[in-house]
């Protein structure tokens, strides 16, 4: 290299300047609060607007009559056959009732079962459930929808192979239409589980008999349908790999029942690659409502966006599911109830809620029952406080030392000759909040002398390990809040009849926890006729759970992330505007009929 180059100051100065400018620009881009193109302003007294009181000016042109929604469909839509396991939104199972509708609708806030296609239902003890259909229901092709279609929608599970509605007949013996408006269901008298029957009535759609009876039994789930015939206010217009477009049918049966038809003429669900893309679009006003996990959602309204959540203060979302730390009772060390209690006492739940869950969870209680919402009537606060646990490192270590455990030179406890670790805690890779929770659990346990390492395999591998019982510890989901919860959750954790040996796939009691009393208590709770009897049965179940702790809730997660943006519509349901629960499925369809356009 020549000397002249070595001594040329101009080029170097230029580079330095360039570096400073580029660095400054990068920092500015990172730190600046994004300002969107949508104009916003304070809204005065409009209901259901942004958490910051802001509201948009509304869109113009065709988009003014369009609702943009995301968070349900992540790949190209293939079929709108509701019996297909790969059905696209909104024909996929138990999502928002836009094209297909169910007989009953569940309200996550109140626990109420609300009318849907059925105007009313009557439960006769634990033997029969009778439903009466609404007046004048029609499918979107104009044909009438009767009780026969409704009964057929369940009875098809007996003949067609491999469809999920078949499980209805584990809880019910039969479902029949006695006339065009009446449906009678005979509850299975072995299980006598009315809650499970009602849950299925809330979660399964009514389909037209004439369309599906024409299909061969083996084609029911595999038939490709591009033009679904449902009873809902919208039908599929077009769909490709970028978006699903729905338009109003124009002849909706429920306009009297719901007090009018939805204000939007079109619903568009853009198909994003992942949460991050959807969240960015939501923040920038490109979506009206969204169902994705957004870290620090309050930053969107702090930045002046007209975004909102149901609750106006933390945790912002209404809890609806309990991700569980499940411990495998067949593993040395974890087979001891004392060790399991030490583990659940050592976990820093506040940290999990505060950081991993972005503050979207209250600190969890020592119970399998959610202390808020629909399940709160069964929650026993005094027993949970007296016999439960909360984060306390010293108490956790004391439990171990009282049981005779001694600390080895490596800082890890040994109990009855068994070293407490190394254990692995698994959950699927990419499930961000759960991954971070596992890290917090592992470091909490290391701090008291139990060795745990995190491991995040692919979802299929994780599922296999959990269902097969080959894991040490895992963070996994169990039944959320639904018409048969909390019974369904107790079954998922404590069932003895559904438990299978290690190596065989099971769908309940993944931790292979054995107990002589659990099954009788579960049956008693399932068959309890009224809330008082149920409460007594759940008290016993929860007391046994607190004594044995086969698993423990680590956070309260929303069942669905309900987050809206008042860029084009207002009157969204929220805690001050409580006409609908913060949901999409079940009774969550109510807001679709009530939101109003900002511009005109």
């Amino acid at each position, binding site marked *: 290299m020549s000397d002249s180059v070595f001594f040329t100051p101009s080029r170097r100065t230029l580079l330095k300047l360039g570096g400073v400018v580029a660095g400054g620009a990068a*920092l500015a881009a990172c730190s600046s609060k994004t300002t969107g193109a949508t104009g916003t302003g304070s809204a005065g007294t409009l209901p259901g607007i942004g958490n910051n009181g802001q509201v948009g000016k509304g869109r113009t042109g065709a988009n003014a009559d369009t609702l943009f929604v995301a968070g349900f469909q992540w790949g190209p839509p293939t079929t709108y056959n509701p019996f297909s396991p790969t059905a696209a939104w909104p024909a996929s199972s138990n999502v928002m009732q836009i094209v297909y509708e169910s007989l009953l609708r569940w309200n996550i806030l109140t626990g109420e079962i609300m009318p849907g296609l059925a105007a009313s239902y009557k439960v006769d003890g634990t033997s029969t459930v009778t439903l009466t259909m609404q007046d004048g229901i029609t499918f979107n092709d104009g044909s009438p929808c009767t009780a026969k279609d409704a009964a057929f929608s369940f009875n098809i599970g007996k003949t067609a192979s491999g469809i999920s509605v078949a499980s209805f007949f584990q809880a019910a013996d039969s479902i029949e239409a006695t006339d065009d408006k009446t449906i009678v269901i005979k509850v299975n008298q072995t299980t006598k589980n009315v809650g499970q029957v009602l849950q299925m009535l809330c979660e399964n759609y009514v389909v037209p008999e004439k369309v599906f009876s024409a299909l061969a039994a083996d084609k029911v789930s595999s038939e490709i349908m591009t033009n679904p015939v449902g009873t809902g206010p919208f039908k599929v217009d077009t769909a490709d790999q970028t978006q699903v477009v729905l338009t109003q049918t124009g002849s909706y049966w429920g306009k009297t029942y719901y007090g009018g038809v939805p204000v939007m003429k079109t619903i568009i669900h853009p198909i994003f690659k992942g949460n991050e893309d959807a969240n960015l679009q939501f923040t920038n006003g490109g979506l009206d409502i969204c169902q994705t996990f957004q*870290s620090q959602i309050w930053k969107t309204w702090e930045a002046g966006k007209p975004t909102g959540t149901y609750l106006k203060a933390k945790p912002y979302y209404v809890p609806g599911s309990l991700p569980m730390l499940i411990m495998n009772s067949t593993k040395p060390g974890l087979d001891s109830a004392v060790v399991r209690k030490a583990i659940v006492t050592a976990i820093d739940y506040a940290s999990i809620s505060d950081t991993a869950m972005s503050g979207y969870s209250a600190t969890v209680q020592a119970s399998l029952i959610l202390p808020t919402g629909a399940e709160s009537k069964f929650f026993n606060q005094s027993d949970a406080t007296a016999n439960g646990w909360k984060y306390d490192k010293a108490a956790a270590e004391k439990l171990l030392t009282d049981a005779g455990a001694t600390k080895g030179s490596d800082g890890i406890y040994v109990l009855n000759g068994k070293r407490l670790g190394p254990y692995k805690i698994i959950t699927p890779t990419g499930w961000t909040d759960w991954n971070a929770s596992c890290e*917090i659990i592992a470091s909490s346990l290391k701090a008291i002398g139990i060795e745990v390492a995190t491991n995040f395999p692919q979802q299929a591998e994780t599922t296999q390990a959990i269902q097969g019982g080959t894991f040490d510890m895992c963070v996994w989901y169990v039944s959320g809040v639904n018409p048969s919860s909390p019974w369904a959750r107790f079954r998922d954790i404590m069932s003895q009849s559904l438990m299978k040996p290690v190596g065989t796939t099971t769908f309940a009691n993944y931790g292979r926890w054995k107990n002589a009393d659990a099954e009788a208590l579960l049956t008693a709770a399932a068959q309890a006729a009224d809330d008082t009897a149920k409460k007594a049965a759940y008290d016993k179940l929860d007391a046994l759970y607190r004594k044995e702790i086969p698993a423990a809730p680590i956070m309260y997660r929303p069942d669905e992330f309900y987050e809206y943006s008042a860029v084009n519509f207002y009157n969204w349901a929220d805690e001050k505007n409580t006409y609908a629960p913060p949901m999409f499925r079940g009774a969550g369809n109510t807001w679709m009929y009530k939101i109003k356009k900002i511009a005109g």
Partner: protein
Amino acid sequence: MSSVPQAAVLTQEVEPTPGGGGADKSISANRPSWRNLNFGPRMWVALTIIILIVLLAEVGPFVYPYASTLKVGSLYDEPSAAHLLGTDNFGHDIIAVLMNSTRNSLLNGLLAGTLAVFLGVLIGILAGYVGGWIEELLMGITNIVVAIPSIVVLILISMSLQHTNIGFLKGIGGLAFVIGITSWPWTARAVRAQASSVATREHIDIAKLSGARTPSILIRDVLPYLASYVVMAWVLQLASAILAESTLSMLGLGPSGVDSLGIELHWALAFQSVSTGAWWAFLPPTIILTLISFSLLYLQSSLDEVFNPRLRRGKKKNLAAAAARRAETARKLAEQNEKVEVLS
């Protein structure tokens, strides 16, 4: 991200000489020998950055008030007087985590780089010196390993490592081991080329005639001639190993329960720090990583200048002084020769 251009070393190979810059030795016997190395400004810049980073990693944790595992705030708290770079997604102080991460990343680089160089030199020197079927076999294996994309092997081995309960394979050591055993081939190939050149020198024949055994010849008579090259390869392997660890950790394949620069980036991505504007979560580890690899590559390139007289450069006056010294020595030598001739 994980591979450092090997051509940087391979194209600048020098004729092997013991200790590299021996050409100047006779010129100024009266000066301390290191002065003749003529470290350029590049070397000083690189060394300063490296020393600062090592201080941050090794001394920092002892003087900084917060531990990297201590929860001091909430999710992505903004920088404040108490926490100059804010907190990460776990509510830990970013500076504390950064110091611990840098330490682990450097340790990983050191272990992996040393292992890779050790394997590369061992295989290269044996193949180059011994020759024959051993050379064919070792180079055959090397070529096969070179042909397999190392990132694929790295990902597969690190995934299986996550299931292991073998003590030394867990944590940062395990990852370093995996990186070390997959990144030696190019070093082996280059060392073999140099070793086979040294093997034909006269001093090797003399060593053989003196009855020296092969291991002794390899260590005493071959290796010193390759020393300068091995040092440069080691520096490159270090940088490459640190980047490889970051790549794997960022993909979520890093060890459990430890901090590293890649793991910091992994969580920053997972918790959407880019879209929420939490620059303090992803910029510091990115800057430290950039500085580490920049300074190591800069050090390698300046070492090249030190060891290879043909690439040498420096300030004009230093070069002029060196030229003057050489001219002076040459003049004295010429005078001596003249005297000898006159006397004879």
